C-alpha cells in the first residue's frame, strides 16, 4: 500500500479528535478485498480500486486481490469461512421481479450454510419478516413486509450496496418502428415483448441481434447461460409471463384465479398448438410441471416443489394445489416452468430415468415448443435462426429472429452501424460510445434502463470485524456512491442502498436512501462512536477485542 498524503492528513485529524480510550483492542488485520480482473469486469474492478482507496483513508489496510470468476466463486461459495470482502453482482431476470428470491434466499439464516446467503447474515428479526412475506397473499400487506425487510437491511448493512447499473441497448430505427419497441422495467428493451412486437418499416423483416457469449443449450429443462434464455423464452410458452411492468400476467392461460391461499385454478387459451401441429392440452401442462420435479431436471425442481397435486379437469382446465401458501407462486412457478409437449418428452424422460444422465444433457435436434417463434437451425458458435410462428395467439410481426455470436465488442458495434445486425442485444462496452455512434449515424436509437440487478460488495458477516453491524455500516457509508456511478460506471448506473431496485416501483422502499449520508468524515465518526480507535494511522478493534483471523 502506498501512503497517500490525504490519508495521513485525515488520520492525524482523527487521532486528534478521538478521545484516548482506556483500552484498545488489537490492530485490525489486512483486509482482503476480491474483485474480478479489469479485462472481464472493468466497472467492478474500478469500483473496488476506488473503494479500497477510500477505506485506506480510514486507517484500514486493504489488499485488493484480483482473480477470475471461477476462482472467486470457488472461495466465496465453497470456503465460506475463508474470505473477508468480495465484489459481487446479481443479474436481473424477469422472474426476479418478484422480490421473494432476493429477500429470502440472499439473507434468510437457513440458506447461510449452503445456499445463497453466502455472507452468513443471521438476524432472527429479519428471518421472521422474510418468512412472513412468502405466505402473505395480500399484496399491500406483503408490500409492508418487503419495506420492513429493506429497512432492516439498511440498518444492518450485511452488504454494501453499490449501484443498479443501466442496461444499454440499441437498434436500427430505419429498420424497426421505434413505437414498437417495448421497454421492460428492470430489464431493458432486449426482451421477449420487444421481439414479438417489433414492426418492420421496410424490406428487412429479420431481427438480427448479437451476443458475445455462445449459446450453450436450447433445452426447456435446463437453466443454462443467460443468452440461452433469450432463445427458449421465444420458443416455449409459459402459463404466465412477467409483463413489461414487472408484474406477471396470464399468457398461455386465459386466466387464473386463487380459490383459497393454497389452490389456484388455471384456464388455458383455446386453440393452442405445438410447433409440430399437435394441440396443446392440460395434460401437457401437467406433464411439464411434473417433469420439473421428476429428478430429471434438478435446476427447475425448486420452482415446482411446492406443488402438492395438479388436477386436470378437462382439456383446458387445471387446478394446482400447493403444499404451503406462496405469494410468489405465479411469478416463480407459473411464469418460470416452460410448457413442453408430452408426446415428445415422455419417451425421452422414461429413457433418461434408466440412465445416469438427466434431461439437462439432452439436446433435441429440433426443439418443439408452442411459443411465438419456431426453431429453424443452430450453427455452432455462429448463429441461431428462429422463424415467426404465425399461428401463435401473439404472432410476431417480424419474419425471423437471428442471433449472431460476436465475441468482439468492437465488431458488434461496427456491425450495428453497417446493418449486419439491426438490434444490439448485448453491449459490454462503454455506453457513451454507443450514444456517440447513434449521434453520428442518426439512424440508431439507444435506450438505457435501470436494471433490477445490482452490484455490491459482500462482507463476510462470520468474520470480525464484519460481524459488527456498526463497522459494516461505517465502511459502507465511507464511500460516496456518486463516485462509483461517475468514475466506474461513467454515469450509467443509479446509486443503491437496497437489494430491491427502484425499477421495481411497487416493492422499492425509497426511505432507505433518505438519511444515507456518506463521506470519510461520516464513517470516521461512526467508527469512533462504535469504539474503534486509530493508533499509528491504523484502525484498532474496540475494547479488549483480539484479532482472530490474522495470517
Amino acid at each position, binding site marked *: 500500500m*502506498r501512503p497517500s498524503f490525504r490519508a495521513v492528513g485525515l488520520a492525524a485529524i482523527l487521532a486528534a479528535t478521538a478521545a484516548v480510550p482506556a483500552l484498545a483492542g488489537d490492530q485490525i488485520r489486512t483486509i482482503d478485498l476480491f474483485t474480478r*480482473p*479489469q*479485462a*472481464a469486469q*472493468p466497472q467492478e*474492478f*474500478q469500483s473496488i*480500486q*476506488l473503494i479500497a*482507496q477510500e477505506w485506506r483513508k480510514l486507517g484500514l489496510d486493504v489488499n485488493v486481490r*484480483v*482473480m*477470475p470468476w471461477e*476462482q472467486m466463486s470457488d472461495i466465496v461459495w465453497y470456503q465460506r469461512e475463508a474470505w473477508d470482502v468480495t465484489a459481487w453482482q446479481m443479474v436481473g431476470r424477469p422472474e426476479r421481479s418478484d422480490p421473494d428470491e432476493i429477500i429470502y434466499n440472499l439473507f434468510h439464516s437457513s440458506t447461510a450454510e449452503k445456499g445463497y446467503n453466502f455472507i452468513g447474515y443471521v438476524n432472527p428479526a429479519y428471518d421472521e419478516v422474510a418468512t412472513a412475506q412468502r405466505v402473505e397473499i395480500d399484496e399491500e400487506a406483503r408490500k409492508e413486509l418487503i419495506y420492513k425487510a429493506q429497512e432492516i437491511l439498511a440498518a444492518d448493512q450485511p452488504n454494501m450496496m453499490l449501484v443498479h447499473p443501466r442496461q444499454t441497448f440499441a437498434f436500427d430505427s430505419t429498420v424497426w418502428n421505434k413505437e414498437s419497441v417495448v421497454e421492460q422495467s428492470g430489464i431493458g428493451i432486449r426482451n421477449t415483448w420487444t421481439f414479438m412486437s417489433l414492426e418492420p418499416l421496410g424490406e428487412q423483416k429479420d431481427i438480427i441481434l448479437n451476443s458475445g457469449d455462445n449459446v450453450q443449450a436450447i433445452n426447456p429443462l435446463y437453466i443454462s447461460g443467460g443468452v440461452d434464455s433469450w432463445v427458449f423464452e421465444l420458443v416455449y410458452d409459459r402459463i404466465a409471463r412477467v409483463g413489461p411492468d414487472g408484474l406477471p400476467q396470464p399468457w398461455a392461460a386465459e386466466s387464473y384465479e386463487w380459490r383459497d391461499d393454497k389452490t389456484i385454478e388455471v384456464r388455458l387459451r383455446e386453440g393452442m398448438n405445438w410447433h409440430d401441429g399437435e394441440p396443446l392440452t392440460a395434460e401437457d401442462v401437467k406433464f411439464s410441471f411434473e417433469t420439473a420435479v421428476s429428478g430429471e431436471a434438478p435446476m427447475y425442481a425448486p420452482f415446482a416443489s411446492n406443488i402438492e397435486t395438479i388436477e386436470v379437469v378437462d382439456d383446458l382446465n387445471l387446478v394446482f394445489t400447493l403444499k404451503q401458501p406462496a405469494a410468489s407462486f405465479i411469478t416463480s412457478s407459473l411464469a418460470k416452468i416452460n410448457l413442453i409437449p408430452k408426446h415428445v418428452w415422455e419417451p425421452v424422460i422414461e429413457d433418461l430415468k434408466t440412465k445416469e444422465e438427466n434431461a439437462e444433457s439432452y439436446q433435441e435436434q429440433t426443439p418443439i415448443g408452442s411459443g411465438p417463434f419456431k426453431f429453424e437451425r443452430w450453427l455452432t458458435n455462429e448463429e441461431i435462426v428462429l422463424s415467426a410462428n404465425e399461428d401463435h395467439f401473439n404472432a410476431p410481426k417480424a419474419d425471423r429472429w437471428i442471433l449472431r455470436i460476436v465475441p*468482439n*465488442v*468492437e465488431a458488434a*458495434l*461496427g456491425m450495428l452501424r453497417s446493418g449486419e445486425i439491426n438490434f444490439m442485444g448485448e453491449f*459490454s*462496452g*462503454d455506453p457513451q*460510445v454507443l450514444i*456517440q*455512434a447513434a449521434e453520428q449515424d442518426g439512424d440508431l436509437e439507444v435506450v438505457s434502463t435501470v436494471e433490477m440487478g445490482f452490484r455490491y460488495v459482500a462482507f463476510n458477516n462470520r468474520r470480525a470485524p464484519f460481524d459488527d453491524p456498526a463497522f459494516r455500516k461505517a465502511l459502507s457509508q465511507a464511500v460516496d456512491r456518486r463516485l462509483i456511478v*461517475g*468514475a*466506474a460506471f*461513467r454515469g450509467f448506473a443509479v446509486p443503491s442502498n437496497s437489494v430491491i431496485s427502484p425499477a421495481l416501483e411497487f416493492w422499492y422502499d425509497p426511505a432507505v436512501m433518505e438519511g444515507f449520508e456518506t463521506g470519510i468524515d461520516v464513517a470516521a465518526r461512526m467508527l469512533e462512536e462504535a469504539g474503534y480507535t486509530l493508533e499509528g494511522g491504523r484502525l484498532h478493534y474496540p475494547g479488549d477485542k483480539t484479532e482472530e483471523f490474522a495470517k
Partner: protein
Amino acid sequence: MLDAAVERKPSLIGRLFRSLRLPLNEPFAVLGLLIYALFVLTAIFADQIAPYEPTEILFTPDYNLAADLRPGEDGYILGTTSLGRDIFSQIVHGSRSALLIGITAAFMVALIGSIVGLVSGYFRGWVDVILMRLADIAFGIPFLPFVIVLAAFLEPSIWNVVIAMALVLWRDTARVIRSQVLTLRSRGYVDAARVAGSSDLKIILRHIAPNILPLSFLYGSIAIGWAILTEASISFLGFGDPQSISWGYMLQDAFASQALAKQAYYWFVPPGFCIILVVSAGFFITRGYENILFPKLGR
C-alpha cells in the same frame, strides 16, 4: 572459421563478450541493438520518466474522472484511458514487463536449449535418444494453447509465459545446438584434447561452449520476441496478469473500451508500435547473426 582461437588472454567478460560475436558491422543489427538499449534505459528509469503510477486513477481539477482525454489535454502526453489512467506512464512501465518477460524467457530458452543440445550432442548414445524424444514431444505441443491452459490454471501472472516457454520452446534451440555440437565434435581438436587427457567438462567448457554461444544468443533474441508477442496475445484473450501493466494488457484494455470506435489512435497505436519495435529489433539482430554464422543460409 568458428574456432575461438585464443591468442591472448583478455578478461573473462571481454572473452565472453567477444565470443558473443555481436554483429556490429550489419547496419540493421546495430539498429536492433540501439532499440534494445533505448528500451532497457526506459525500463530502468521508468519511475523517473513516467509522470504517474500506471494504475493510478486520475481525476480532473473539478473532481471528475480524467477519462478518455486526448493527447495533450490537461497535460497528459498521450491522453488517458477510459478508466482514467495515464497512457504515457503505462507505455513507459510496459517496457519493464516486456523486458522482464523477454529477457527471462530468452535466458531460460537459451540456457535449457543449450544444455540439452550440448549434452545430447556431446555424449550421444541413450542420453541423446531420450533428450531428442523429449524434444519431439515438445514439438508436438501447440505453444499458444499450452500457454492459455497454463495461464488459466495457475494464478494469472506474467511468469506463466516464461514458464511455458521454458517448458516448450527449448526444443528449437536444443536441436540446432545439438547438430552444431555434432559438427564440432567431428573436428580433430576435440579428440586431440581428449587424448591429451582433458575431462569432458573441460572440453565442453573450453572448446565447445564458446563456439555455440553465438547460436544460443541468436535463439535467445528470437525468444525475446516470441515472449513479448505471446504475452500480448494471451493478454488480449483475457488470460493476462491483471496486476502488472504490459503493452498487451494496454491493447486489451483499449479494445475492450472500444478505442477503435472512439478513434483513440493515441491509445492503441503506441503499445502496438512498441511491441513491433522491440520484437523486430530482436529479428534484426538475429538476421545480422545469421549472416555471420551461416553466410550461405541467411534465413
